[in-house]
């Protein structure tokens, strides 16, 4: 039973981290219609910048500065790259971000090389917060939870209680009207893109020490962020949150408990074939949940798209 509690906490950390990425992505998507393939690359940049800054100025300055730099970079990409491609339509835009993701990975390797960076948890947070049945919960994870919850609350406040938030919300649904009302929609776009990428950068800053800072870190996370916002419903912040947590817990629990396909199949009335060694379906029978934990979100996404194309919380219909 204690393990369940531990897994809940671990899943929460994973889910919230995913949320920090998907929140920005879903905002960007619903405003600009751009599925930003490079979003996870900004997450990677966040980790690398924070590492570089932490060498000189310590972890906390990295936490402060890296997201800002990433955000400015993101805004620059929007202003000088995406806006230009925008006129050609959505497919070229998407392909632009796709190429950007590749280029950022190459750039990171160019600058920092290909090895993993020794970017570590700061000393002050490098202790065990508490233990449950021998499982220690590192203080840094608690810190991660606080940061991401803080971001969510802040985002919710800005979007629902401030004027800027109102405009953004309106621009989400009625970009033309908002433009007609005299708001500078391109500027809003740039701002949202900047903030979205800064959030991704922040996620990178706090995830880098735990999940590793290496050139492949964006690729590992890349498509799962899309999956999250598609499951949650494109453009829905709540959807992004729910889907992130869902995926966080789903994968955590699937990894923690060895559910075997054989048991499931037996449970629903199939009997295990006699000579499994011969059967071509052998591999299917022996699948365990940890083996497929990380592809469960994809299965979920395909199912959702087939049966509810707008996603869990999506309002838009095709």
């Amino acid at each position, binding site marked *: 039973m204690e*393990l369940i509690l531990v897994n809940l906490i671990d899943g929460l950390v994973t889910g919230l981290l995913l949320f920090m990425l998907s929140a920005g992505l879903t905002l960007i998507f619903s405003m600009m219609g751009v599925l930003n393939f490079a979003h996870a690359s900004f997450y990677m940049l966040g980790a690398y910048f924070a590492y570089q800054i932490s060498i000189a100025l310590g972890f906390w300055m990295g936490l402060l500065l890296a997201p800002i730099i990433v955000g400015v970079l993101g805004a620059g990409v929007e202003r000088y790259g995406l806006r230009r491609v925008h006129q050609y339509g959505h497919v070229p835009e998407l392909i632009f971000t796709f190429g950007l993701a590749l280029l950022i990975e190459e750039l990171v390797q160019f600058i920092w*090389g290909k090895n993993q960076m020794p970017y*570590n948890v700061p000393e002050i947070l490098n202790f065990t917060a508490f233990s449950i049945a021998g499982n*220690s919960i590192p203080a840094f994870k608690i810190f991660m939870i606080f940061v991401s919850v803080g971001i969510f609350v802040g985002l919710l406040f800005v979007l629902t209680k401030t004027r800027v938030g109102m405009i953004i919300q309106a621009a989400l649904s009625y970009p033309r009207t908002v433009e007609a009302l005299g708001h500078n929609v391109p500027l809003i776009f740039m701002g949202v893109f900047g903030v979205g990428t800064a959030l991704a950068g922040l996620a990178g800053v706090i995830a880098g020490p735990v*999940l590793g800072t290496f050139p492949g870190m964006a690729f*590992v996370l890349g498509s799962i962020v899309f999956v999250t916002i598609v499951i949650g419903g494109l453009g829905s912040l709540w959807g992004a949150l729910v889907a992130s947590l869902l995926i966080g817990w789903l994968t955590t629990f699937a*990894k923690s408990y060895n559910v075997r396909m054989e048991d499931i199949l037996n449970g629903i009335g199939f009997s295990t074939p006699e000579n499994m060694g011969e059967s071509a379906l052998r591999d299917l029978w022996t699948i365990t949940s940890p*083996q497929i934990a990380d592809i469960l979100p994809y299965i979920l996404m395909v199912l959702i798209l087939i049966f509810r194309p707008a996603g869990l919380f999506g309002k838009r219909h095709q």
Partner: protein
Amino acid sequence: MKKFTKLGAVSALSLIVGASAAFAENIKIGFIDPLSGPFASTGTNGLHQYEFAVDYMVNDKGGVLDGKNFEVIGFDNKTSPKESLIQLQVAIDQGVRYIVQGNSSGVAAAITEAIDKHNRRNPDSRVLFLNYAAVDPSLTNEKCNFWHFRFDANADIKMDALTDVIARDEGIKKVYIIGQDYSFGKSVAEAAVEMLGEKRPDIEVVGNELHPIGKVKDFTPYSRKVISSGADAVITGNWGADMLGIGKSVIENGFEGPIYTYYAAGSGMTAAFGESGKGRIRLIAQGSINPIASEEARDLYNAFLEKYPEGNIDQSRIFNSIGMLARAIEEAGTADDVVAVASKLEGMEYETMWGGTMYMRPQDHQVIQDMYVGVHTDEDVEFDFDSSGFGIVTESVVEMASKDIATTCEMKRP
């Protein structure tokens, strides 16, 4: 490195056109491994070690066959079997007759098969495959062929040595096996279960699990299971980011026992583990770095450090493979007739500067050598890895590990 920055040295197409080996003086060794992409760091480090090895061990000493030099040419396979096969063809066209490769058993399987077919179909341009790091046992068992030589111990041999060491530790009652979900991870797990069962039937395997390779973002749930299983030791064949991920995660989440690994050193990993892995990470390797096995090795290592101050010699087998190749060529009296060279490699006994004797078993072309189990620490480290102050210090030696290990290889000689 030089080869790689030779941008436009020969215009692109003429390079392919003017194929044949124009410079007969050099004996060309084609290094086919990832030099770009996610696994590039391992590949690049390997290339550096090869380049250094041929210069230091062969060329600076007058070469072989009265003055012929070795030349290492890097080919980027991007860890892709397809690219490997293309680059293999390019290498052969450039006059390369010796292919070295090590990263990814999948690529090694593709290459060994392609070379077998190539040698059958093109008897004029036969090549040898010197495998320095791909450890899938099948390469010297059902997939073996005359052209393939393995200078690393295979996964079974390594596990044999590791389990010998584990068996000696009376404190270990429960072990947890975790690995990547593919052929190598599976064979590590199988070997561990089987050999532990033979050597220490009292040890309980409390967990035996595979995770998707290269896809896991967060290993926490796995380490939770390790800890709650009450395991005294962990065995893993993981490499790359997966090794670092699982290692850091189990330690961070409260695991206290030793972690027995195959690939937990060098390529930035030693630095990344740093203090947290001290006395915990144990590693099976061939050759002893700390304490260094011989004066010759010490000189070589220092010379290497002079050239690559941040480099590691984490693959001493690279030096062994060059040493053994050079001797086989000398003994055969030719570098062009690879069958003659291969015949000399078969059964060769070679005193290595990294400690002990290497014996190339003729029946499966698997090298038999002393295996060393070391621990990740910063004490008594003469040669550290990643300039981190940490290195691997030898704890125990298994001499001529698994020298009688069975093989299903039926070697067909030309």
